[in-house]
């Protein structure tokens, strides 16, 4: 395995983990927040009460655990791959989010929105065939 193909392989594996775990976490997050109800306003007391209810919800903590797993994979891959490569590549997760929202949360999704998800996938395909690391010297 050449260094370049090895870099592509480990990048692909970690991005695959990212796009599998994050949509599940996002789905749990959406489910948990709907159980809590709409944010009542911007007053500190309202915000405190709202976020207190959010962070005492078991569903929200399952979501946070899944998103932490995503974040660790994300940190590792960013140690060698460019941010502008990783972020668009991970957008494949939007397909899974839409499918989970439709089949698990029973959300109605319009044909236009499905088309939007398909176009996002096409964008991901285009990005996936570029080199993962193109950084020049960093100065800040």
């Amino acid at each position: 395995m050449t260094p370049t193909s090895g870099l592509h392989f480990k990048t692909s594996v970690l991005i695959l983990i990212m796009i599998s775990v994050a949509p599940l976490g996002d789905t749990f997050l959406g489910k948990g927040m709907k159980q809590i109800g709409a944010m009542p306003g911007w007053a500190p007391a309202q915000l405190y009460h709202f976020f207190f209810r959010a962070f005492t919800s078991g569903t929200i903590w399952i979501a946070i655990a899944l998103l932490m797993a995503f974040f660790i994979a994300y940190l590792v891959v960013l140690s060698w791959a460019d941010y502008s490569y990783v972020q668009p590549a991970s957008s494949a997760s939007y397909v899974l989010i839409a499918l989970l929202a439709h089949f698990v949360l029973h959300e109605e999704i319009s044909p236009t929105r499905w088309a939007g998800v398909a176009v996002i996938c096409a964008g991901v395909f285009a990005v996936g065939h570029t080199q993962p690391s193109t950084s020049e010297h960093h100065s800040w």
Partner: protein
Amino acid sequence: MVTQIILYMMIVFVGTGGELFVSRAMKSVGEVTDFRPSAIARVVGRAMAQPKMWMGISLMALAFFALLGMLSMAKVSFVFPSTALSYAAGALGGKVFLREKVTPQRWFGVLLVCMGVVLVFLGKG
């Protein structure tokens, strides 16, 4: 509606700013070559010693709170695809602040993602 717009802008721009700081911090830590849990834990420890990492995490936490607020009011199938607008902000930020070379093919991919986001917005039921 105003609340949703404010939350949306926070998710996209504050979140992207946080991710750019995290990316810069991880490049300082160096490439991860050992994937054993203990080695990954050491990398995470080194990353947490970087001030830029804490700046990034703070901004991402703020964006996360905004995301919770948005999810309490809007559908999952709208919130997550629509916030993909951060891809454009990310590619631009990567080029300007991290000096990443964004190839024409990557720009094309980002453009397609943005067009998809527009369709998702138009398809809000």
